[in-house]
């Protein structure tokens, strides 16, 4: 039995589609509210920072002075140079360790590894990335601390070295996975061509893949930097509380992020100290924005298309 072919052309919708516009409006609403929240953070942080940013905060003192005395009753000072040095030193040490190590691991996993080992390693790295920062801080504070004291003879083990190692371990997963993506994005045609010319895997890697993937690798390193700069709990617990410009890797320091974490609870809401912490927060946001934008630009170019 076949339905007649000359029935009225087309099958029109038999039931009214009442529910559908409602669903589509709900979707639109969620889209717009998400957009709203996304911009709200940027807006709000700067709003709270604005009164002192355009008011009593002496920007020159802010960026160039090492005197961070927000609670002084005589004359509060808001110089963050020491804090910037803290963030910079810990990040620099962390990158010095994690960038080469992360690239090495990325190359190994991408080019020198069998498929089963690759799957296993990628899962391990993913689990490494999942470890919460407070646990890393705990490891730095409880485990690495005595180890550093024991091996270097320093009086305290929470310092740049401690924070640097911990941050390195925290940044490695990002560098490794973005780096591996960059290597994988190099067209197979390059690999086949090099191998056809008789290159060994190492020659292929150093002479063909690394130059071809250099944009992606640079982006990976930048994202690692972004991760390290923005980290809070781990550095709070592992680098110490000393607001000073460090002279060596065994000196304790304090980072920008740790400062906010340590002091926000004790400030008066709406007071100057409170608002200056928001200024620091804004600064951190700008820094991470710049890092992400640069990484994105490097990989995607100005027109939003892949650049490898």
């Amino acid at each position: 039995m076949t339905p007649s072919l000359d029935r009225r052309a087309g099958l029109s919708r038999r039931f009214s589609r009442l529910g559908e516009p409602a669903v589509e409006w709900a979707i639109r609403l969620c889209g717009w509210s998400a957009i709203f929240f996304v911009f709200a953070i940027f807006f709000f942080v700067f709003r709270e920072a604005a009164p002192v940013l355009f008011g009593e905060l002496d920007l020159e003192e802010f960026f160039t002075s090492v005197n961070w005395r927000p609670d002084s009753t005589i004359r509060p000072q808001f110089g963050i140079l020491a804090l910037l040095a803290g963030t910079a030193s810990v990040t620099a040490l962390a990158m010095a360790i994690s960038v080469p190590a992360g690239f090495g691991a990325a190359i190994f996993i991408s080019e020198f590894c069998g498929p089963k080992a690759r799957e296993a390693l990628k899962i391990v790295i993913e689990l490494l990335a999942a470890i919460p920062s407070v646990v890393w801080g705990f490891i730095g504070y409880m485990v690495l601390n005595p180890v550093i004291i024991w091996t270097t003879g320093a009086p305290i083990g929470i310092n740049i070295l401690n924070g640097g190692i911990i941050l390195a371990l925290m940044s490695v997963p990002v560098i490794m996975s973005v780096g591996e993506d960059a290597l994988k994005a190099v067209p197979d045609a390059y690999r086949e061509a090099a191998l056809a010319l008789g290159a060994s895997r190492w020659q292929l890697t150093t002479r063909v893949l690394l130059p071809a993937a250099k944009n992606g690798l640079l982006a990976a390193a930048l994202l690692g930097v972004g991760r390290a700069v923005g980290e809070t709990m781990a550095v709070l617990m592992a680098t110490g509380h000393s607001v000073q410009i460090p002279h060596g890797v065994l000196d304790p320091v304090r980072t920008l992020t740790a400062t906010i974490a340590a002091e926000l609870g004790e400030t008066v809401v709406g007071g100057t100290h409170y608002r200056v912490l928001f200024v620091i927060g804004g600064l951190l946001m700008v820094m991470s924005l710049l890092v992400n934008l640069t990484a994105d630009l490097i990989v995607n170019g100005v027109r939003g298309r892949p650049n490898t």
Partner: protein
Amino acid sequence: MEAAHIVFHNVTVSYGSTIALDAISLEIPKHQIFGIIGPASSGKTTLLKCINRTIDFVPNVRVTGQVTIDGEDVFRVKNVCDLRRRIGMVFPLPVGLPLSVYDNVAYAPRMAGVHDRDELDALVETCLRQAALWDEVKDRLRLLGTRLSGGQQQRLTIARALSHRPEILCLNRFSIAVDPVTTMKIEDVLVELKRSITIVVVTNLVQQAHRLADRVAFLNRSRVIEVGPTEAIFSEHPASQMTFDYVRGHFG
């Protein structure tokens, strides 16, 4: 000539600064196979997209002019989805939806509100028979559509296009990804279907147009160069020299 089913009145389509169709006027008669030939980028796909208004999905598109089906302007219909159900569309690359073969063909009827099991069974069988696919899949209706071969998937696409009982069937270079045997089967299907459905076939294979079409339009660079009965287009003296050159393979 038969009554005109689809009419293009001075239609111009542009995306940004590119002109895809340039003041096209065309009449496609009912219950015939209408062939459209021409080199790449001559606007053939855009033309098809205007018929069922999937041109709407192209970003930054501007359309002027009128496209009518049985006199009704397609850009002014009340319900675009109902319009699209009156037209079946087959693409160059076979696309099997990630559903069972049965569900692939039952998809459009279900979206239109048909839920009666017997009705769906009958419809699925009819469409698969019409697409010359029934015998190969009748015992495997639960098989995932994406697991069929390329030729079978293309016939599945045709079955899907027929599942909403269209009055017009458009095929856009349907044979390029498909083996010659399947192509032959599909061409037989089209000849059978033209008795009740108006068929528009866009093709890069000039000989295919010669085999199948009753009337042919030759497009080049977004313009209609010539329209006429197949014998005229493929004769020694078509109206335009360009037509003669293209059909003989001197360019394109």
